[in-house]
């Protein structure tokens, strides 16, 4: 009676094979990430045979094609941080305020329009931002502040700020709208109005998610290449004011990699910059991840 129920080796083997195959495919992301790390180390580290860590990180001059060359990335590092800081000054208030508006104030119909619009803003290619910056924003900045050139840190910061807003807004909005209703109801029950509830209950409860959003927005700004390459002015000097042209790490790589000889000191120096850049964005990402986990646990 009954069918034999044991040992269908062929079928089990086939199923296991399929599972392993998919597992293999899912490992590719890690393979690529590791590949990036290996390439950056392999091509970046040789520069330290020529120059010490200290001189690389704290050298004030970046003259890669002089004889002898200078490979100090301090101006580039500061250029990146300078522009990113400027971008955040613009993007954080606007981005977070828009997120609060979308999730707490806006009528559902308006919300249904603003959210996709901001998603679209994220979709505009960075080279278009750079182009727009060159032909529209830079002349305005130049004229308004009476500057010799419009391509400077301020212009770059404005554009990067606009570019970081979608990231900040959409993640903050997720965080704010996932604040439990009961928190708000408790506040209303105590006689607080909507504004007081928003400021004193909702936004503080979403603080973890909002900080994650800001960190990721920061990562986006630091890693952005084409826009800063086109509008930041490109002077590799230590920035002293926002009205001065600056050059970021990303722009340096993009501008100079095409002209270097593969395997030269300059080539390795550019990979070393990429390594620094990668380390920076990686730690920002991990930081954001840790914050998200913490935030989740606390809400529970």
């Amino acid at each position, binding site marked *: 009676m009954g069918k034999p129920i044991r040992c269908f080796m062929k*079928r089990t083997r086939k*199923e296991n094979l*399929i*599972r392993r*195959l*998919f597992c293999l495919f*899912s490992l*590719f*992301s*890690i393979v*690529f*990430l590791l*590949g*990036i790390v290996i*390439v*950056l180390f*392999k*091509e970046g580290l040789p520069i330290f045979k020529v120059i010490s860590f200290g001189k690389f990180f704290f050298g004030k001059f970046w003259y890669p094609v002089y004889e002898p060359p200078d490979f100090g990335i301090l101006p580039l590092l500061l250029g990146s941080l300078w522009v990113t800081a400027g971008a955040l000054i613009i993007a954080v*208030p606007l981005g977070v*305020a*828009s997120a*609060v*508006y*979308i999730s707490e*104030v806006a009528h559902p119909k308006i919300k249904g329009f603003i959210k*996709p*619009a901001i*998603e*679209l*803003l994220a*979709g*505009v*290619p960075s*080279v*278009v931002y*750079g*182009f*727009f910056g060159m*032909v529209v924003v830079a002349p305005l900045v130049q004229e308004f502040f009476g500057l010799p050139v419009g391509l400077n840190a301020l212009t770059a910061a404005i554009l990067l700020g*606009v570019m970081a*807003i979608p990231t900040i807004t959409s993640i903050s909005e997720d965080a704010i709208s996932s604040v439990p209703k009961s928190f708000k109801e408790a506040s209303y029950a105590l006689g607080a*109005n*909507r*504004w*007081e509830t*928003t400021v004193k209950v909702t936004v503080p409860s979403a603080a973890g998610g909002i900080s994650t959003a800001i960190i990721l927005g920061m990562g986006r700004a630091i*890693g*952005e*290449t084409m826009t800063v390459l086109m509008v930041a002015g490109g002077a590799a000097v230590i920035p002293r004011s926002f009205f001065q042209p600056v050059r970021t790490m*990303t722009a340096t*790589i*993009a501008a100079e*990699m*095409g002209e270097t000889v593969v395997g030269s000191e300059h080539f390795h120096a550019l*990979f070393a910059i*990429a390594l620094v*850049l*990668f380390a920076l*964005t990686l730690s920002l*990402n991990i930081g954001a991840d840790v914050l998200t986990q913490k935030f989740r646990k606390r809400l529970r």
Partner: protein
Amino acid sequence: MDIRKTKEFIGFGVLKLAAVIVLLALFTILYFVAVRGIKVINWEFLTQMPRSGMTAGGILPAILGTFYLTICAICFALPLGVAAAIYLTEYAKQGRLVRIIRIGINNLAGVPSVVFGLFGLAVFVKFCGFGISILSGGLTLGILILPTIIRASEEALMVVPRSFREASLALGATKWQTISKVVLPNAVSGMLTGSILGIGRAAGETAPILFTAVTFYSVRLPRSVFSEVQALPYHIYALMTEGTHPEAQIPIAYGAALVLVSLVLGIDLIAIIIRNRFRRRKKW
């Protein structure tokens, strides 16, 4: 009482103002690009080769190049991404391996695009010997959009109700039969819309193809995957920063920017519309 109400009024007003500014920024960019770009766009502009050292003629090679690069990227990333998503949602048990894979995906998504360019240069151009080519650039872009595709596919798979899987398994289907005959057919639309967002991203990126695929000027259209190509985003950059006749090049850049923006945002818009439609139509 009155003060509190005034405060609320002002507070919400400020929030609204912020949202308006953000939207205004978006529409200003689109407006400028559209109004100035539309003047140079005509049939000839879209279908002709560039002439007289990039100061006249069309942008056909750049449009085609972007098209080829994007196709190449999606052909590479879509199977990989879908397979990874299937493993993560259908097969994997929560554990250390899955955690590591997720960390990999999250961090890959955060790597600056120019770093992908360097990776492509070192691995595809030099190590694999593909040279500066559609293949090198396409593969680099493929890796760049892989996280987007994995996430979109995972989301699409997770929307398929568990009851479908249970029904299939209870009928004596194997896991793979269940996935291939029940889960995937119901997730395919979601996967595609998600992947379209990846396509949009691949079409608009410049930094990753800077040293892996593009050239400012080519006499011929590309013949094979090993040809170097022109691409729209790079074309815009080059027109703005190289060359000697900015007054003639800027209008062309406007035209190219409009084509690129309509392409990318058009693709995104289609994805968003399809997504919303599917969300509404699904009964389960």
